[in-house]
């Protein structure tokens, strides 16, 4: 089965990122396809490369990047939600005249149309949120 995943909550604040990661790994293991993971609301904070949790804790953002690298999972951060919360890739930072960017490897920033497209293309959409 082909899945689109929507992650609506930020890492650490809420378990939805961990649950989504566990669901995706289990689905891939069973031979399912993850068409896209879309990050919305505070979920966009899953895509920062500047998180430094305590050493004995998991680094959620790295787990997403690893998923993209190992399985080619498409990780898309909503641009409107990202702009509100200060998530920037290099192009967007330049466009906005900002002096830094903070997006983690494997993520890309795009529009809400990518969510709707994912909903249309996938057999099932699974929402992880509050």
């Amino acid at each position: 089965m082909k899945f689109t995943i929507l992650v609506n909550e930020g890492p650490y604040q809420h378990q939805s990122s961990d649950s989504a990661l566990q669901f995706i790994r289990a689905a891939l293991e069973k031979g399912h396809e993850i068409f896209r993971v879309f990050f919305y609301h505070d979920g966009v904070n899953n895509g920062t490369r500047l998180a430094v949790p305590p050493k004995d804790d998991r680094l959620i953002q790295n787990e997403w990047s690893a998923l993209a690298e190992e399985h080619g999972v498409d990780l898309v951060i909503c641009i409107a939600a990202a702009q509100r919360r200060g998530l920037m890739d290099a192009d967007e930072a330049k466009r906005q005249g900002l002096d830094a960017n903070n997006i983690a490897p494997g993520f890309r920033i795009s529009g809400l149309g990518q969510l709707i497209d994912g909903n249309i293309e996938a057999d099932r959409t699974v929402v992880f949120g509050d």
Partner: protein
Amino acid sequence: MSKKFMYVNRKAPYGTVYALESLEVVLIAAAFEQDVSLAFIDDGVYQIAKGQDTKGIGMKGFSATYNALGDYDVNKFYVERESLEERGLTEDDLMPIVYEDEDDDWAEKPSVKIVSRAEMAQVLSEQDVTLSF
């Protein structure tokens, strides 16, 4: 191919950003020409309550946007009766949201439909994509 999309609105309009950002997704889905419905349950019923005024909290009000959704062919607003009753609200406390029916000489019709919890479950079961905010 068009799918049946349902946006489930469960949160009050202010206090968290869910309602505003949900509305932004609804507008994009409408642009993709999908069959879009909205459900209002729990505190979500406050999103379409009459007479909202955000001046005192310093936030931009967006309640007028719900009334504009009819222009994007978004005209199925399912509101759960039990959620209204639990909050001491009736249909009269909701904004009179309408759309123009192109199949009926552009007659103005109400978008809001009050349904029971059981009917809401039935409507939800008929959807292809359910996004909960």
